[in-house]
């Protein structure tokens, strides 16, 4: 290649800091997963791993389909999804108003922040024994664990983003005659909402983590409990099917949030997050 005026022509899909087409990004994603399963399948077929501990991917997929169709995995999935959605909704209902209020009013932050930041450093699973004693083994301790696990992080992240809403915007509102709460409602909240949705997307992934912990430790229903049952009978294919289900569910929620971001905030252009 000596013709320097024609530099962009070769390998247009492999350029420094040039965004890739959506077709290319889909193909790339398929490629890496195909490669992963191919290596796994190859390793299994070649007999390099113990079949009992690492079943081949086609075995896992067959098991997964069988469980979905014949063995009631769908109800486990629905229970898990319900737990995540319900407890995450409660966490958001607390964290969004409180986080925005703390970020907007230093007086409110001064009260709640010493409390919230202390709780943030307590690992949520350390509450499992006491939650079991207080609430028994029903739904409540699981839901409480999920809420405790994310709510304090969510509050802090939303507070930080709210603080970063530019002062000029607030002062503009003041010189246009806005009162304090009017400015919170009509300037600070809309300015911070895109960041709130991004924070929700990230923290929902954390909720899934705590869900599996809760279901493994103290549950007879849900995807996590199903995996613990499978372990007792050395059904590694079922455990792996569970892992795949959780991964796919997480991915679906992530896509849902990205869609929502584009839907609610059409004015934000070219921001891929």
């Amino acid at each position, binding site marked *: 290649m000596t013709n320097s005026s024609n530099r962009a022509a070769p390998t247009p899909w492999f350029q420094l800091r040039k965004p890739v087409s959506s077709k290319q990004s889909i193909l790339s994603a398929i490629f890496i997963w195909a490669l992963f399963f191919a290596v796994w399948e190859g390793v299994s077929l070649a007999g390099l791993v113990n079949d009992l501990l690492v079943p081949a991917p086609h075995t896992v997929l067959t098991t997964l389909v069988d469980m979905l169709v014949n063995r009631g995995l769908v109800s486990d999935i629905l229970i898990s999804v319900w737990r995540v959605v319900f407890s995450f909704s409660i966490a958001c209902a607390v964290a969004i108003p409180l986080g925005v209020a703390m970020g907007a009013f230093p007086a409110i932050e001064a009260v709640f922040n010493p409390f919230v930041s202390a709780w943030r450093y307590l690992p949520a699973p350390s509450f499992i024994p006491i939650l079991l004693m207080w609430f028994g083994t029903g739904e409540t301790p699981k839901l409480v664990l999920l809420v405790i696990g994310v709510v304090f992080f969510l509050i802090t992240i939303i507070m930080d983003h709210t603080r970063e809403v*530019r002062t*000029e*915007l607030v*002062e*503009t*509102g*003041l*010189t*246009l*005659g*806005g009162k304090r709460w*009017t400015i919170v409602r*009509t*300037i600070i909240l*809309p*300015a911070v*909402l895109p960041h709130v949705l991004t924070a929700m997307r990230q923290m929902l992934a954390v909720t899934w983590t705590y869900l599996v912990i809760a279901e493994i430790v103290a549950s007879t229903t849900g995807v996590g409990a199903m995996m613990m049952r499978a372990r007792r009978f050395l059904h590694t294919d079922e455990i792996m099917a569970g892992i795949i289900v959780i991964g796919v569910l997480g991915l679906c929620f992530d896509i849902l949030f990205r869609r929502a971001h584009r839907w609610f*905030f*059409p*004015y*934000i*252009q070219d921001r891929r997050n």
Partner: protein
Amino acid sequence: MSDIQHTNTVAAASAKLVVDSVTKRFSLGKGREVQAIADASFIVDENEICTILGSSGCGKSTILRMMAGLERPTTGELRLDGSVITGPDKERGMVFQAYTSFDWLTVRGNVEYGMRINGVPKPERRARTQKFIDLVNLGGFEDAYPSQLSGGMKQRVAIARTLANDPALLLMDEPFGALDAETRWHMQELLVGIAETANTTMVMVTHDIEEAIYLGDKIVFMSSHPGRVHKIIVPEFKQGKRYKSKEEVIGLDGYGVLEKEIMRMMQEQGANDER
């Protein structure tokens, strides 16, 4: 220098805005303080365009923020139409150097924002919004979002939004400072046209001598460390007129003389600061 007159007294019955013996000290913590403004007194008349000119650190933005009510003077007071300014109010709208468009609202939503939060009825609101969008030449962009606009257009949205709210005083803190030279030129000429139509008293902070002379019916020249009013300059060569064309003003005989005089004062300032 017949163009320049010294004024240290605060009086005048026609005064719209009075800055009366204002000082400002900022605390730096641990008992240390910095004197931002040592003493400032001047008046702005009804429908006047007043430019506050000075190098950085002269406290010109601080004075403007005190006019807006976003800062309080340490001593002295500011009065608009005779009443003391104690806090921000829709009577004193401010345009900042940084873009302050509300990204989640369209151009129309931005311009009508002030009227909406102040409860102006919808028919009147719509009509005024359109009037001020047209005034800043943004007709056709009503439904565009700020992210789709250039810097100059964003500042025009900010000016329209402030004026549509019908303030007694339009305050601007280097509103064209972030724009390229050509856009700035157009915006300055546009602002003269706006002043004609909107009949608003305007105070603009700038460090651009050309801008201060072209736009200012009165120029408050401030010196720094600590900030004080060095001279109040009325560019007599404009004979009390406003010109739509900036080129015409720069071509006038008195322009070069005044520009040189102000540059000399700025250089003296710089020399004093070095010492």
